[in-house]
């Protein structure tokens, strides 16, 4: 019996029985998904309150008498009963309840907690697809997923997304209003729902990952957490028959290959490190292994998406023996493919960098000839930094200095400025 209960922490057998990392947060997501399915999306807030209450009760009860054997079922029972009480009390909604939430109110018996991994996975996935309803603005989808599926509080979301609590609350309210109209999502068969909405789900997971990966938080744990959540949701997606598609595998490969290098992107003081400065022995072997495996699986079929191209580029970096021995021409080619799938001047810029490494700075610079950066990129530090570097390497000192000054002035953070100063003042190789 106790084998089924996850929470005994594997970390330190000597310490009193604990909980696996993020147990409460992940249970929050599981319970919300399961209960929403039972009572309907319009009761999402009541469900979240009940789950929050159950966790609070658990905190006291488990401190007093230890973690019960089947802690998941324990939490489910408490949340379910309290939700039942609240919905019953709410007489104003009695009629709606009678018609729509009959099954919940009718079963007077002990509620059965879904314990089979597959069932829980299905409910979590369904909730993820519900969150990714196209009628919800994308930034609201992200916040909704972080709140309901990942169990972050509004304050925690605001902190991680560098925004205000009021803003997070506003996004969440917008999403919840939409959800009330989207009740039909709960009844749609998974396969149909999954097929039509998969691109939106991919986009939200990728956004979530990048919020962590590109974040300028100095605390590694804060950044890694969002990346881990994105990988967790991506893995759920990749292991369900209805969403296990080459694109999903490519996205998951991409996230693993980036995550492998997350810890090595900064030095001990939190300063950013260039790829060539990173200690490759710090790259996470498990993530590299997973990334390679999912990348191999993504190669089936005839789809080639932006995720395939980006995962391919990440793999070239990850599996190159050193910076110098990187297959830069293959990377340049992948950036060219990426540009065709998803045109962006950033890809053009990255291709120029790869060409400069593979074929010389003249070739890199020439590939940018006649490229007019859009307003948002013109004046962005990346554009000037690359031009400063390439001009310096071909010997155009004046142009190099001009772009260097622009890049430094436009640096968004001290960490980036320090990195630019280091990179752009080096003597020509």
């Amino acid at each position, binding site marked *: 019996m106790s084998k089924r209960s996850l929470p005994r922490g594997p970390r330190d057998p000597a310490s*009193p029985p*604990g*909980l696996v990392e*993020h*147990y*409460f*947060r992940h*249970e*929050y997501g599981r319970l919300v998904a399961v209960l929403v399915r039972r009572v309907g999306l319009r009761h999402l807030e009541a469900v979240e309150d009940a789950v*929050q209450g159950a*966790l*609070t*009760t658990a*905190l*006291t009860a*488990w*401190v*007093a*008498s230890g973690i019960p054997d089947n802690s998941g079922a324990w939490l489910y029972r408490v949340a379910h009963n309290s939700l039942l009480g609240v919905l019953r009390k709410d007489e104003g909604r009695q009629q709606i309840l009678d018609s729509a939430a009959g099954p919940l109110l009718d079963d007077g018996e002990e509620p059965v907690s879904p314990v089979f991994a597959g069932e829980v996975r299905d409910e979590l996935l369904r909730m993820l697809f519900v969150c990714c309803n196209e009628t919800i603005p994308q930034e609201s989808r992200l916040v909704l997923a972080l709140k309901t599926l990942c*169990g*972050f*509080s*509004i*304050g*925690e979301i605001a902190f991680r997304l560098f925004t205000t609590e009021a803003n997070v609350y506003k996004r969440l309210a917008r999403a919840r209003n939409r959800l009330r109209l989207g009740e039909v999502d709960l009844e749609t068969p998974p396969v149909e729902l999954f097929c039509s909405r998969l691109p939106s789900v991919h986009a939200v997971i990728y956004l979530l990952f990048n919020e962590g990966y590109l974040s300028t938080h100095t605390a590694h744990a804060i950044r890694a957490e969002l990346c881990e959540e994105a990988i967790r949701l991506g893995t759920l997606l990749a292991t369900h028959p209805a969403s296990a598609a080459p694109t999903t595998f490519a996205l998951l490969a991409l996230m693993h290959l980036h995550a492998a290098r997350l810890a090595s992107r900064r030095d001990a003081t939190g300063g950013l490190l260039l790829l060539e400065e990173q200690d490759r022995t710090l790259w996470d072997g498990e993530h590299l292994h997973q990334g390679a495996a999912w990348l191999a699986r993504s190669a089936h079929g005839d789809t080639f998406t932006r995720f395939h191209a980006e995962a391919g580029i990440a793999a070239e970096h990850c599996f190159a023996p050193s910076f110098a021995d990187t297959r830069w021409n293959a990377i340049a080619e992948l950036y060219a493919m990426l540009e065709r799938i998803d045109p962006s001047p950033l890809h053009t810029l990255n291709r120029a960098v790869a060409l400069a490494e593979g074929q010389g700075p003249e070739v890199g610079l020439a590939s940018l000839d006649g490229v007019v950066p859009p307003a948002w990129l013109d004046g962005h530090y990346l554009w000037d930094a690359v031009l400063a570097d390439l001009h310096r390497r071909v010997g155009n000192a004046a142009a190099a200095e001009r772009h260097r000054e622009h890049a430094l002035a436009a640096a968004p953070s001290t960490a980036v400025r320090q990195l630019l100063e280091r990179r752009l003042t080096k003597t020509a190789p």
Partner: protein
Amino acid sequence: MSKRRYLVLFRNRPTGGQPGASPEQMQQMFAAYNVWKEQFKDAILDMGDKLRSEGRVVTASGVADGPFVEAKEVVGGYMIVSAENYDGAVEVVRACPAVHAPGVSLEIREMTGAKM
């Protein structure tokens, strides 16, 4: 056994709709509670319980219903600790993670043991 017994009352002041702890914070509190419980396992005689907010007040003139939302503070829980004296009891209670929860104060009252 020269130790005295103390009743600890948890009093909660309404926090004005402020959100409670997040799941992640709860997990940290759970860990902190376990450390505290282990550290003072000899002093904590009874972990006590939490109290629901509804209740009844009985007086000679009758029975009144709770909840007592008008009250500035309500008793939200209790526990029993043993210590040589108030200093000892305060040491146990001050280390309790609940001290840091918003709006919470802990009142320590020595039990007379009169019934024994």
